[in-house]
């Protein structure tokens, strides 16, 4: 591994990693793709805020209110910087990535709104892909059902890549929005955004990226990507639960109708009508996840202090190591790219004749190895590969090759138990 990347020092920042599991097993946490662990730097900022600086934001005009508002809005600045947002007001705090995706989906076909880009009805089309997380499928299915629009999707190749062979037939003048994962949460595949975007621009549609699996793991610059919307979630980026982010071009946020109504998203309210605050507040109805946003601010600061590039490099080495080591387990088949080209540190696989539930449980029970088993909220992708479920190991900054060794040892044992 890189000599500069001091994984042992990093591990000390994450209290849970030195926890002993029942039965004296050490914890081998290979489930960061599901949710990441939290460093003391995040936990303490949250504790301290709750204990000494908490009050509601925006509305309060006293010391605590000012401190809380300042910390909350500073978190927005940090997140904006982290993803290269041209304007801090383009960062909308949501409760998770799913809310961010639904927020955008609800902007379409809303009779309140007349901006032609968001008008939607029969004949209009929405394009997603077969490798999406349910959170980037179901909101669009619901939208299609509400409006009568048609949902279409890219297929996935046997190698686990987006099949762009029919890009021009799929994305057409009828397309209003294309929403795909930046990085697949099952395959690890990083999708070719620029190629898709070029076509999207040709037909005058909008493009959204589900960056839940990329923002935590590699440098993401929304301006450089050039898309219109991007969603990610705090808990996968060493941040707390209860906080997600929608980034969108400011001009689009202005053009979109509000999603939820309530305190803080308004400018003026009469009984029979309201005017709305400018973005981002327009989309932050009610008391926001204050302490959670502050925790996310601390999280992206923590990631930046280590260097997201360095983290990506570390994960790359882990992935190389894992692909090799797993390749030697008899009956193991990786679902997704077997090379390091355009792929992140998520490796899903099947073990012949053994159900992933059993794989996961034995790994946990006997070795303290935490992996995820099932369809990972990507059932259509599993249907595509004709399998009900996979076992998934996903890596992050605090993982080590020794942990991959533990995984492999565990898999050999699993094969023995169910032989």
């Amino acid at each position, binding site marked *: 591994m890189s000599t500069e990347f001091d994984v042992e020092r990093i591990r000390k920042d994450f209290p849970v990693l030195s926890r002993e599991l029942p*039965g004296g097993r050490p914890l081998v946490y290979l489930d960061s793709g599901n949710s990441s662990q939290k460093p003391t730097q995040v936990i303490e900022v949250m504790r301290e805020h709750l204990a000494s600086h908490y009050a509601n934001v925006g509305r309060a005009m006293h010391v605590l209110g000012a401190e809380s508002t300042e910390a909350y809005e500073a978190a927005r600045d940090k997140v904006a910087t982290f993803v290269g947002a041209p304007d801090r007001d383009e960062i909308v705090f949501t409760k998770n990535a799913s809310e961010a995706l639904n927020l955008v989906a609800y902007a379409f076909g809303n009779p309140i709104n007349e901006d032609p880009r968001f008008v939607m009805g029969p004949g209009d089309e929405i394009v997603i892909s077969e490798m999406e997380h349910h959170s980037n499928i179901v909101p669009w299915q619901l939208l299609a059902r509400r409006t009568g629009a048609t949902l279409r999707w890219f297929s996935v190749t046997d190698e686990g890549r987006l099949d762009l062979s029919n890009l021009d037939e799929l994305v057409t003048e009828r397309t209003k929005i294309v929403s795909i994962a930046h990085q697949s949460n099952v395959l690890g595949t990083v999708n070719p955004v620029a190629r898709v975007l070029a076509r999207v621009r040709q037909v005058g549609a909008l493009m959204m990226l589900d960056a839940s699996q990329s923002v935590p793991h590699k440098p993401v610059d929304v301006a450089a990507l050039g898309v219109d919307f991007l969603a990610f979630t705090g808990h996968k980026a060493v941040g707390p639960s209860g906080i997600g982010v929608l980034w969108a071009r400011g001009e689009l946020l202005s053009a979109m109708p509000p999603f939820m109504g309530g305190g803080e998203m308004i400018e003026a309210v009469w009984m029979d009508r309201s005017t709305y605050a400018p973005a981002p507040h327009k989309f932050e109805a009610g008391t926001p996840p204050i302490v959670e946003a502050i925790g996310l601010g601390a999280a992206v600061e923590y990631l930046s202090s280590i260097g997201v590039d360095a983290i990506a490099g570390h994960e790359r080495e882990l992935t190389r190591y894992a692909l090799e080591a797993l390749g030697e387990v008899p009956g193991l088949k990786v679902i997704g790219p077997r090379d390091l080209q355009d792929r992140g540190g998520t490796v899903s696989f099947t073990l012949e004749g053994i159900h992933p539930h*059993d794989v996961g449980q034995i790994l946990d029970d*006997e070795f303290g190895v935490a992996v995820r088993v099932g369809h990972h909220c990507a059932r259509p992708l599993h249907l595509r590969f004709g399998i009900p479920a996979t076992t998934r190991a996903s890596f992050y900054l605090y993982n080590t090759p020794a942990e991959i060794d533990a995984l492999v040892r565990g898999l050999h044992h699993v094969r023995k138990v169910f032989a």
Partner: protein
Amino acid sequence: MIAESMYQELILEHYKHPQGRGLRDPFDNEVHHVNPTCGDEITMRVKVGEGGKVEDVSYDGQGCSISQAAASVLHELATGSTVEETLSVVEEFTRLMQGRGKVEPDEEILGDAVAFAGVAKFPARVKCALLAWMAYKDAVVRSA
């Protein structure tokens, strides 16, 4: 090893050597249940005879060791008992499974099925354990 609380020898035994597997005639009712979240599925047939006696529980399906073993244990427990008796076992088993690891199982009622107690702590596995049992209950209720 925690494993003991989940992969009891008895469960692995039933998984590797399932009892009464395969669909048989005659039967009163056949049902097909699926656990959509993990793709496990089971087809189950029940034959009830004189005095409400369960004469046969036959099944086929696919899934993890827990769901397969649960079907096998069910076959053993149900065959030869009355419908009424088996429904109270199903009820106790359901209570155990949905107790999130906090319910003390009644061994008197459950017999071998008590081996599944460890599963209750894993919400994601509870449905695996219950798949066959819910299918059975469904089939029996329809027969009634």
